[in-house]
């Protein structure tokens, strides 16, 4: 039976490959995700290990918790350098300052572009510094700086060049004296690094008599652990002492997990959705081929094969497809990761890329998932194959009796759908209580599993139930389609009546179709070339030539075809009617075919609804709460130097200017939340509080000391009332006892709690404001005022000055950029569904060979046949699109309702949905190209004799 299975697969190579593509893409995404994650981790590991390879022990300020939002624990007193130097076994101890800052070159701020930090680091002596200089030397005198090679390359910096450095106290003139390499990487994730002398860094970044870290070298014969223990004994408790390797590991983990904790689950989710969509394709293909091969199975049964043997044969096919597809997927995934590397490198975000290492997980997880999914999807059809009676070998067209599942499909699907919805709702509103109760998982995994599991069940249920709506939907779509064609026909006939006009109109149509064909090919070619260009320019040029050649060829083909079409034949409404009926003929099959597209569309709509709801709530909150004229923030979300606030206030046209400070704090009741620092006098003029529980701006009149205003969500999760006390701990470990004096609602901008600036400043060293709000005096022209403030803040180029509307635009474009990224990932599913539709169409054309022969024999032209297949494809895709839109809206509604108290609103993006449906229809047209040609090419006689 293995022989039968394998031979059968080999005989149907093309079909098997088309079926397998879906699994290949899905497993490629899984493998690629893990390769990327391991690369990132590996790269950061090597960067930080190299950086600290000459350091035996590192001392820094202890943190009370791990902050994901970049809260820094502050500096150590510089006197500790001397203390440590005197510890027995210490050969050398040096201090180092780390701060945020960047160069200003020719008036332009040269900070990092990709959201990575812009770092200023004081130089260590050769005893500790592992980096090599490709030009120049380390800074020795005041005003000398060195830069990392990527920064030098990007901004064309040379040794000896005079530039400026953005410091906490304004711009300082500096001279570049050296360019260095960070070991193998050109940068740390795109960060710019400027090196200064230790004393300059202290002066310029408010660290006089302080140091960020202390690097220690051991005497020969003293181990790192020994030295570490000795130093611990000699320093105060707030000093964290680690060996070099320990520190490297911790820092690498922090940076890597910052990226991976976000990227990996996201990519895996998309990979999972892709694999899931692929399962539908496999199910469908196997169902169709099993039906087509029923005589084969019957034959096997007549010569004595048992049902189990038949089952095994089908499952072996699925196993082989799954295995080979997964293996190919792994290879593709690695290639994909390599492509991403090059893309990242070229686009400047410079994610460090270590050599590609293959951990076992990267190999066996995609393999297991791909193979398991393929086999699971094929189980249904496999069982169906066993039910072919032997007598079907003798008789033609023996109908398989409906299986148990098919008979109870409605009930089964409804149950599944209900369970799925229930899980979803539970996941959103109850934080996955059911899953937690059943399996005991933690809160976050429970939520994720509930939502993912619920979504899967819902998709399966919808796919099963959609067979009921196929017919009505086919009418809804097909009838207007037929009417459109009739309309076009009528218009065409009228035009033909006018002598000359008909021919002219025809020529115009031809020209338009040439141009469209040309543009389409150039567009596709252009996209591919764009990607190639990032890899190598000559390759891109070659690609451009090929696209141009293909486009001209396409135009030529269209010309040839249309040349034989004068006078053009009248389109027959029969074609669309046949198409509609064919689609409705086997609703179950149409439903499953459209299902994979349905999944893709549903996810796209869901993402659109959710992200837009998110964006709207943020923008809405800005509109409602911010009453200032300017919003000033750093594009890399690093804090703005505190000196910028008085600089803004000094501008004559400014009425009020104040900063909002942000930091993370550990709440004594548990968890980490945001603490905002506000100026009680100025803030009410810049921000409108949405007071609750009878609060008012009057509270701010005497807001001071240990008083705190809490946000509604904070109050709920920590169960705090007005008048109660709680405690917060800063990143350095400073505790603060606070009393609740008021409650406001703002789940978007001012989350967590708000305390007075004066309290904030004494409690933590992270006192630079995260955002600066400015309001002008009445009557001041907005643009002029903005120009004045920008001029005043030239000393602090990290701060980008924007008006409210500019800030909103900026936010929108960032969100849209992220959305586009998500859509590109979802496009994978789109490609798979396209392949699925092609597959199914080709198979059904094959199935209907005799029918098609009959149609041709009674006068249907090839063109009409092609049209029929095309319409079928369009109807199927649009069905998938319509159902997908419905499902996506439902998912989006559930999620936004669940997060409504965090300000997210639900709105239906109508124009987006229309675009999506049009794209689905176009996908249908695209998918039909090959099967339509196949159908048209069938030889009439052969087709009629076909058995």
């Amino acid at each position, binding site marked *: 039976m293995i*022989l039968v299975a394998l031979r059968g697969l080999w005989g149907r190579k093309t079909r098997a490959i088309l079926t397998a593509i879906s699994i290949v893409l899905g497993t490629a995404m899984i493998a690629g995700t893990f390769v990327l994650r391991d690369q990132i981790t590996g790269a950061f590991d090597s960067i930080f290990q190299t950086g600290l390879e000459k350091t035996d022990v590192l001392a820094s300020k202890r943190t009370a918790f791990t902050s994901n939002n970049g809260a820094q624990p502050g500096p150590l007193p510089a006197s500790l350098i001397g203390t440590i130097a005197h510890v027995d076994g210490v050969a050398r101890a040096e201090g180092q300052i780390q701060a945020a800052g960047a160069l200003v070159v020719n008036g332009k701020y040269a900070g990092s572009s990709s959201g990575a930090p812009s770092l200023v680091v004081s130089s260590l002596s050769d005893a500790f510094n592992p980096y090599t200089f490709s030009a120049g030397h380390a800074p020795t005198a005041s005003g000398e700086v060195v830069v990392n090679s990527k920064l030098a390359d990007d901004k064309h910096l040379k040794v000896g060049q005079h530039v400026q450095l953005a410091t906490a106290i304004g711009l300082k003139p500096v001279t570049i004296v050296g360019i260095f390499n960070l070991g193998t990487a050109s940068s740390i994730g795109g960060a710019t690094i400027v090196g200064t002398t230790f004393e300059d860094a202290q002066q310029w970044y408010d660290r006089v008599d302080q140091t960020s870290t202390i690097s220690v070298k051991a005497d020969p014969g003293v181990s790192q652990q020994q030295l570490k223990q000795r130093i611990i004994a000699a320093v105060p408790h707030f000093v964290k002492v680690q060996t070099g390797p320990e520190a490297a590991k911790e820092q690498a983990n922090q940076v890597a997990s910052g990226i991976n904790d976000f990227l990996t689950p996201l990519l895996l989710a998309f990979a999972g959705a892709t694999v899931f969509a692929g399962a539908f394709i496999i199910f469908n293909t196997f169902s169709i081929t099993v039906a087509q091969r029923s*005589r084969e199975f019957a034959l096997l049964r007549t010569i*004595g094969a*048992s049902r189990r043997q038949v089952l095994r044969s089908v499952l072996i096919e699925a196993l082989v497809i799954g295995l080979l597809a997964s293996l190919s997927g792994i290879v593709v995934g690695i290639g994909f990761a390599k492509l991403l590397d090059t893309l990242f490198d070229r686009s400047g975000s410079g994610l460090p890329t270590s050599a590609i290492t293959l951990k076992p997980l990267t190999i066996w997880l995609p393999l297991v998932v791909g193979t398991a999914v393929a086999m699971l999807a094929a189980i249904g059809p496999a069982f169906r194959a066993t039910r072919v009676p032997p*007598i079907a070998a003798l008789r033609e067209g023996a109908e398989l009796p409906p299986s148990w599942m098919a008979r109870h499909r409605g009930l089964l699907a409804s149950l599944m759908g209900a369970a799925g919805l229930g899980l979803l709702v539970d996941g959103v509103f109850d934080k996955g209580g059911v899953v937690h109760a059943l399996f005991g998982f933690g809160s976050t995994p429970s939520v994720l599993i509930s939502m993912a599991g619920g979504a899967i069940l819902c998709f399966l249920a919808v796919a099963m139930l959609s067979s009921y709506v196929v017919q009505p939907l086919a009418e809804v779509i097909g009838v207007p389609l037929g009417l459109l064609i009739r309309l076009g026909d009528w218009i065409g006939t009228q035009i033909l009546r006018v002598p000359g006009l008909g021919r002219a109109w025809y020529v115009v149509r031809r020209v338009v179709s040439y141009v469209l064909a040309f543009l389409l090919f150039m567009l596709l070619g252009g996209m591919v070339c764009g990607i190639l260009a990032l890899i190598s320019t000559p390759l891109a040029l070659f690609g451009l030539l090929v696209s141009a050649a293909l486009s001209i060829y396409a135009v030529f083909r269209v010309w040839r075809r249309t040349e034989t079409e004068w006078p053009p034949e009248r389109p027959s409404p029969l074609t669309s009617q046949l198409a509609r009926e064919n689609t409705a003929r086997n609703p179950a099959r149409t439903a499953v075919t459209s299902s994979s597209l349905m999944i893709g569309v549903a996810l796209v709509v869901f993402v659109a609804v959710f992200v837009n709801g998110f964006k709207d709530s943020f923008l809405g909150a800005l509109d409602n709460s911010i009453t200032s004229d300017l919003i000033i923030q750093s594009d890399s979300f690093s804090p703005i130097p505190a000196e910028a606030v008085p600089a803004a206030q000094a501008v004559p046209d400014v009425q009020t200017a104040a900063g909002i400070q942000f930091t993370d704090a550990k709440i004594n009741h548990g968890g980490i939340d945001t603490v905002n620092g506000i100026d009680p006098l100025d803030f009410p003029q810049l921000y409108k509080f949405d007071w609750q529980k009878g609060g008012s701006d009057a509270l701010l009149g005497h807001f001071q000391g240990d008083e705190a205003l809490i946000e509604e969500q904070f109050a709920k999760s920590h169960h705090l009332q007005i008048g109660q006390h709680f405690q917060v701990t800063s990143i350095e470990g400073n505790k603060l006892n606070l009393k609740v004096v008021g409650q406001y609602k703002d789940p978007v901008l001012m989350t967590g709690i708000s305390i007075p600036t004066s309290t904030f400043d004494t409690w933590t060293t992270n006192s630079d404001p995260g955002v600066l709000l400015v309001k002008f005096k009445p009557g001041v022209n907005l643009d002029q005022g903005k120009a004045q403030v920008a001029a005043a803040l030239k000393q602090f180029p990290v701060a980008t000055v924007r008006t409210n509307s500019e800030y909103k635009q900026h936010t929108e474009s960032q969100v849209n950029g992220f959305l586009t990224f998500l859509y590109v990932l979802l496009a994978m599913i789109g490609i798979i569904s396209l392949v699925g539709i092609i597959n199914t169409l080709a198979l059904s054309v094959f199935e209907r060979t005799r029918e098609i022969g009959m149609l041709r024999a009674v006068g249907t032209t090839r063109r009409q046949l092609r049209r029929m297949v095309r319409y079928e494809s369009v109807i199927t895709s649009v069905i998938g699109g319509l159902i997908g839109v419905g499902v996506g809206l439902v998912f989006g509604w559930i999620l936004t309702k669940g997060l409504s108290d965090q300000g997210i609103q639900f709105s239906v993006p109508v124009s987006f949905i229309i675009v999506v449906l049009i794209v689905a229809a176009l996908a249908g047209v695209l998918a039909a190209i090959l099967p339509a040609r196949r159908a048209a090419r069938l030889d009439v006689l052969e087709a009629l004799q076909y058995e």
Partner: protein
Amino acid sequence: MVVAAHDVTRDYGEGDTIVQALRGVDLEIPPGQFTAVMGPSGSGKSTLMHILAGLDRPTTGSVSIDGQEITAMGDQELTLLRRRHIGFIFQFFNLLPMLTAEENIVLPLRIAGRDAETGWVDEVISKVGLSDRRTHRPAQLSGGQQQRVAIARGLVTRPTVMFADEPTGNLDSTTSEEILVLLREAVESYGQTTVMVTHDARASAMADRILFLADGLIVRDQGRASEQDVLTAMAEVSGQ
């Protein structure tokens, strides 16, 4: 008796639209006999063969193969029956298109997990005259050659009885002749009991015994006859 049927009836449908394909057929087939079953269309000959071969169940009556009552057998038992006792040749589509001739021939043995005795397989292949085409796929074989492969496959398991459903229906006269000669030889060389349904008088002329069916009943049961006699008998039977 290799095959025995007693009072077999087969109805299709119910009530007003009931069709009685077989109305009480009794027959017994001894070992080594080549039986032809003839009749006009609608006579029930194909239905009879399906029931005798265990592919279909009679409405009433009993059928036994090699002494085993098959009408009450479940699917698994029937499957085992097909492995050991029954061989098939059809009019169309006998072979799996992706296997070679030889692979098609030994397929029943592999399915049963039995080892092919190489000598026997070689003999069967040379008996049907396909020694030089063992490795060809069905698409590379003519209709006659494909039927030879089917015959070889039927013979290779040495079944108790071989059923053939219009084996020459799709072949031209010369090729049909060859196939029928082959079937005859199998009966004579190996004592292979064979039951053949046909409407071709020439095919029936090859058989040891000819059963004529009309309207669901056996109306004539005669021994070997010439083609001319068969045609005359057919005319008489159809006339009734």
